[in-house]
């Protein structure tokens, strides 16, 4: 853990920033002359609403927040791209912002010329950056392409070049927005090493990211921003948990009202239960419970899954069984479980109007992500499905330590032993 004795590198006091979004945008002089008072109506959007914090010298500080949380606005205020409405920012030394890699690269110029241009942009003198051209090219592994115009570069080469200029920037404070994972695996490893070196060299680094793993891996402290305010500040692990909780708690609720398009362009799977029409049974309700018997929308990783369903028979049935399938957000089934509706050892006949409560409980090996429970009722004697409800319940699993691209964590015993060498 980081010591608290260091002097401050950045002090932010009660920072406010809001944007005026005109209801009618006047964007020509003609309009301004014809309708001089148009566009005076505006909606005020509070992007930052009283943010105060301090970052110490030599600290690796993470800032996390969802889209629209005010995170990017804070970033641009720190980088002197926006001007604050109220409040103070004070800092020690020179700050170099990297909000997007390769900003200001001119495709018509060679790599060499662009390195100089970009280097000066991040605050080096032309002399300093000219001395470092070789080490930039070296780091980017682009020595052979030094005199090639950037328009002929591949996108991978471009980000490597931009990243390498950043590494040579030599600022006291680095402000980095989501640019850690560039290039192939080998280059990523190299970047990670370089970051560790910078961290060890005592640079102050502010990292803005969605990747909680990165925050926990690098940062001494982190800060969660939501709704223009600081929601949590402190241990990166805690911040990460708060962030995931925040992310997943509100998301499904909102989706129930209106299907929201994900930023990536994919439409989120429709979470509203879709029953196939059935005149035999009807699902009345389905939900998830925690160990205290309260209804929940989310589960922490490892917390047991308890599904509850209430159903009603719409006509007399000789007997039925119920079953569940848990599927992930991509629609891939993960597991299946179920049982017959029985009394003693025989199937229970259901009379019209009788209701059935189903309780299912199982271990939760699921990793972070969104999951769906499908519910079905089968007639006995293989007479097919009486009811199938797609997405009877949906829930989110948060927390946990597993990599985000795996689905389950299963108990495993791993042994790795160095074998004795034959000759010694």
């Amino acid at each position, binding site marked *: 853990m980081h010591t608290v004795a260091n*002097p*401050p590198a950045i*002090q932010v006091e009660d920072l406010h920033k809001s*944007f005026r979004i005109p209801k009618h945008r006047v*964007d*020509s*002089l*003609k309009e*301004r002359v014809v309708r001089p008072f148009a566009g005076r109506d505006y909606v005020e959007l509070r992007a930052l609403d009283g943010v105060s914090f301090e970052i110490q010298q030599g600290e690796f500080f993470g800032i996390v927040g969802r889209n629209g949380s005010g995170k990017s606005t804070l970033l*641009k*205020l*720190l*980088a*002197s*791209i*926006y*001007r*604050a409405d109220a409040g*103070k*920012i*004070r*800092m*020690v*030394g020179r*700050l170099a*912002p990297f*909000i*997007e890699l390769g*900003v*200001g690269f*001119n495709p*018509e*110029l060679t790599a060499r*010329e662009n390195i*100089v*241009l970009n280097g*000066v*942009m*991040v*605050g080096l*003198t*032309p002399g300093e950056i000219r001395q470092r051209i070789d080490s930039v090219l070296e780091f980017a592994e682009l020595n052979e392409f030094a005199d090639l115009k950037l328009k002929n570069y591949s996108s991978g080469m471009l980000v490597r070049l931009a990243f390498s200029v950043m590494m040579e920037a030599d600022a*006291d404070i680095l402000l980095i927005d989501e640019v850690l994972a560039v290039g192939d695996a080998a280059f990523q490893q190299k970047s990670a090493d370089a970051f560790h070196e910078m961290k060890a*060299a*005592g*640079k102050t680094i502010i990292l803005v990211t969605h990747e909680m793993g990165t925050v926990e891996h690098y940062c001494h402290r982190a800060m969660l921003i939501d709704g223009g305010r600081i929601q949590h500040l402190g241990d990166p692990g805690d911040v990460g948990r708060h962030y995931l909780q925040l992310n997943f708690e509100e998301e499904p609720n909102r989706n129930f009202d209106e299907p929201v398009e994900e930023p990536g362009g994919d439409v989120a799977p429709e979470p509203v239960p879709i029953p196939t029409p059935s005149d035999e049974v009807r699902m009345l309700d389905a939900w998830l419970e925690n160990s205290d018997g309260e209804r929940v929308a989310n589960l922490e990783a490892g917390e047991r899954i308890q599904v509850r369903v209430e159903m009603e028979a719409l006509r007399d049935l000789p007997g039925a069984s119920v079953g569940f399938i848990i599927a992930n957000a991509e629609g891939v089934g993960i597991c299946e479980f179920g049982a017959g509706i029985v009394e003693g050892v025989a199937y229970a006949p259901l009379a019209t109007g009788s209701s059935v409560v189903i309780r299912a409980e199982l271990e939760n090996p699921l990793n972070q992500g969104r999951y769906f429970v499908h519910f079905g009722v089968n007639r006995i004697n293989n007479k097919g499905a009486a009811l199938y409800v797609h997405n009877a319940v949906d829930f989110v699993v948060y927390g946990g330590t597993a990599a985000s691209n795996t689905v389950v964590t299963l108990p495993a015993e791993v042994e790795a032993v160095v074998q004795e060498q034959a000759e010694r």
Partner: protein
Amino acid sequence: MSAQPQPLRDVRGPSALGGGTRRFFDLLWLMSATEFKRVYFGTVLGYLWSLIRPLALFGTLLFVFTKVFKIGSEEAEYYPVLLLLGIVVFTFFQEATGNAVTSVINQEGIVRKTQFPRLVIPLATVLTGLLNLVANLLVIVVFILAFGVDPQWTWLLFPVALLALLIFTAAISMALSVLYVRFRDVAIIWVVVSQVLFYFTPILYPIEALHNRTYEQLLMINPLAPIFQQLRVWVLEPNAPTAVEAAGGWLHLAPAIGLYFGICLFALWIFNREAPRVAEGL
């Protein structure tokens, strides 16, 4: 990492000169020079292209005005050179301001994603234009000597006129670049205005060709007119009427001088007002 403790300083957000004066000039020079190099050495015809435009205009106008309308030659001793010099210098004004209009929008990435002194952007277009002008003037000197104009000591005053024009060009470029962010019809308006300015500056015709005192005085309200008139006197014809003479005394020159400084002050004011919030308007 510096060893001695540095003081905390306030961060006030973006500004015209933000990030220190040294960095300001480094960036200004680098941006202008690389753009100039790109145009001149990036393509085979680079330098030729930048010459062809004023020369083609010159050839056309020379034909129209000496063969069709037959004006100029009797009032101005070296009408063809006067026309060429005027066109080349005005092309600088027109290109620099024209490119400045969209400059901030074109550099959107830089403005929105980096800490960048705002003033560099319009000024870089002016400086690029100036480098261009200097290159073109080298050719003009050959023409001037070929037409038999004798070198004079007043040639040394040429930079004075050029400086006056440079300041005016920079001011207009600054104002246009930030106004365009707000009002997109500024681009169209400026194309028209700069075209009108071209005809209301004594370039196509020597001012005496108007043969009308009132028109001559009215023409001298255009802040560019005295500058071009002095260029003619200093470079080509020491006997031509000076700006003061053409206007009919210093008093009549006052509107032009007032407009000149008024526009410069307006440009400084509007740029300073808009620059900190330019990134938000994009």
